[in-house]
């Protein structure tokens, strides 16, 4: 499994999954933190796109849970959020996120980013 997209916004899910499928990636979608965590355990995605504001378990908590799990901590977590403030970015990075992208974003750039990360491995 290449990617896990975690976002409660159906339009973000739709656009990202459309683009990545089109580019030939293998991906799965989750709509909240708890679902994301169980899918991460089960599928071991290489990269996780994680929204911050989500019901049930929010992005910060999810990120920390993933990074604290020795089995999962190798997943590359990209926080994807509409919160544009410095403090949110810091909190995201403190929670262990590897990267931080604010909405609105360009799908093409994201694809490029994913390619670079995967080629590094």
């Amino acid at each position: 499994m290449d990617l896990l997209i975690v976002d409660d916004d159906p339009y973000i899910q739709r656009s990202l999954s459309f683009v990545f499928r089109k580019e030939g990636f293998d991906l799965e979608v989750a709509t909240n933190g708890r679902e994301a965590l169980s899918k991460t355990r089960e599928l071991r995605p290489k990269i996780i796109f994680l929204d911050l504001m989500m019901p049930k378990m929010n992005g910060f908590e999810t990120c920390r849970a993933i990074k604290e799990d020795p089995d999962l901590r190798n997943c590359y977590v990209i926080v994807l959020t509409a919160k544009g403030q410095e403090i949110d970015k810091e909190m995201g990075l403190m929670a262990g996120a590897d990267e931080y992208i604010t909405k609105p974003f360009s799908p093409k750039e994201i694809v490029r980013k994913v390619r670079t990360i995967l080629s590094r491995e």
Partner: protein
Amino acid sequence: MKKFFFYFALIALIPLSYISGNIESPVRFLFYPVTLMLTAFFSAKAILEATMTFCVLYALMPFTAQYHYPLSTVALNILSFLIMGAAAGRLSEILNQEKISLNKTTETYQGLTNVLNLKIMNLQSKIDSLSEAQEHLMEIDRNKTRFISGVSHELRAPLSSIRSFSEILLSYEDIDDDTRKEFLGIINKESERLTQLTKDILDMVKMESGKMEWHIDTVNIAELVRSAVKIMLPVAKSKGVALETKLPEQSITPIRGDANRLLQVILNLISNAVKFTEQGKIVVGADEMPDEMKIHVTDTGEGIYPEERDKIFEEFYRIGDDLHGRPAGSGLGLSISKKIVESHGGKIEVESELGKGSTFFFTLPKEAATVNKAEKIDWLESKGGRKLLVLEGYKPARQVLRSALEEIGYRTMGADNIKMALEISKVMKPDSIILGYLENEENFEELRTFSRVHGIPLFLSFVINDDDLGPQVAANAYISRPLDAYQIYSTIEETLGRSPSKITIISGDQKEARSLQLMVGAKGCATDVFPSLESAGSSKSLPDAFIIGTLPRDEVQRAVASLRSSRQTREIPLFLILGIMIRDVRCIGLNSSEYGRGLEKILEPLKNNLSDVAHF
């Protein structure tokens, strides 16, 4: 009293000498230490008098005594007594002078302490008002930051969709028609949402800053409810929810308000109800109460959790946050509705039962509280159009201020500098002068004096940087910005409605007089300042109260005595600022008229800070 004791002590020496049997001893030697000791307590004059008396008695002694002495011995003794008396007199004089100069120093020190105390009070009140203002500004700032961060978050979501899907459509040629249509549909929907959001944010900002333009007219609530239902019917139908009206049979009294904005509130409530109702019906109605109109929207939806019932009126709070999927709307609908209702003088509330549904209702007073035409005429008539002089150096600002005042019903005049304002005031006699921003504050002193003497209150509508004695302290009241008609009206009327008091301040200390003048003046009293009682006597009209500050000791006594003895001034309340040098002043008659008590209130801060202000 002390003096008698002294005489007694000396005279007692005479019989003592009889008993001792020898005039030569011990009387003669007792005289010197007794006289010396008493120099500390008596004036030179008293000591000399007593010495003379003693000498005469002493000289008479040889004739009555059993023993006879040579006259030369007696004469020599008397001479030595006289020399001793003179020396003691001189010593007492020197001591007295020292005492006077010490007293003077204490007086000066006390006077300075008074001035310092007044300064400290002024500073303290400034610090208080500053920290209050800062607190207020910080609160505004916090709210703004929260709002902006909310706005930025809300704008990013639809923008994100638009950007992603348009880029996808541009990048990939091989998208099938259905998907293409789906994506275009999303872009279209999200643009609509963005438009609505922008509109709502603008409304919100306008209402927050008081810049919303209200179109106040007669509104028929029943009609409003009917048209709202008509607009929302298709939406409700498409969701399979019934939408009904429940209006009283008889016609409803029309109220005053902004019809479009009130319709916006009802539409918002209905659209929320439709959003959260899966089955059942929505009832929209209005009831006429004795002094208000009650409009309600009841649904059979899922209900609202008790802890959410207040939050839903907050900006960007959405019940949908805890649900799956994409939240609809801007998250501002209810906050805007709340603001609109409150601007009309009403209240919006919610009642809800989980699983059964919710009722949103809002009230509108029949006498609309918003500034409308009817009220404008009212103000104009009752106040007979007061004349106000607007002193503001910057023309556009002056025009804004003048038109705001005229809208309320005041007559206005304009001036762009102090000199011109003074000239106009002398001829036109305005009821008050409203100060805006001044490029230079030259002649400000003259304007202040003019306003005090003629009892024309000064209002400040702009914060000016100043030193201790600047315009802020002199102004009677502030008109805060942004300009709000009702606030201007109430501030001006409250100040002008107060009967202006004239207070005469008599103080030899210029700085103290100044501080007193500013403090009393800031309470809306006109003040006259005189350095002495004589100069105060030259004033033709009588004040409503006297304040006596630092004056030479006997002058305070004289002032109090003369003010209390004159028939004209006997009843006028008199306040003394007591220092050490006037400790001998006695309370002369107690006059406490109703008016005096009112003034006491004005001088309350003075009293609290200078614990020894006395009221005669």
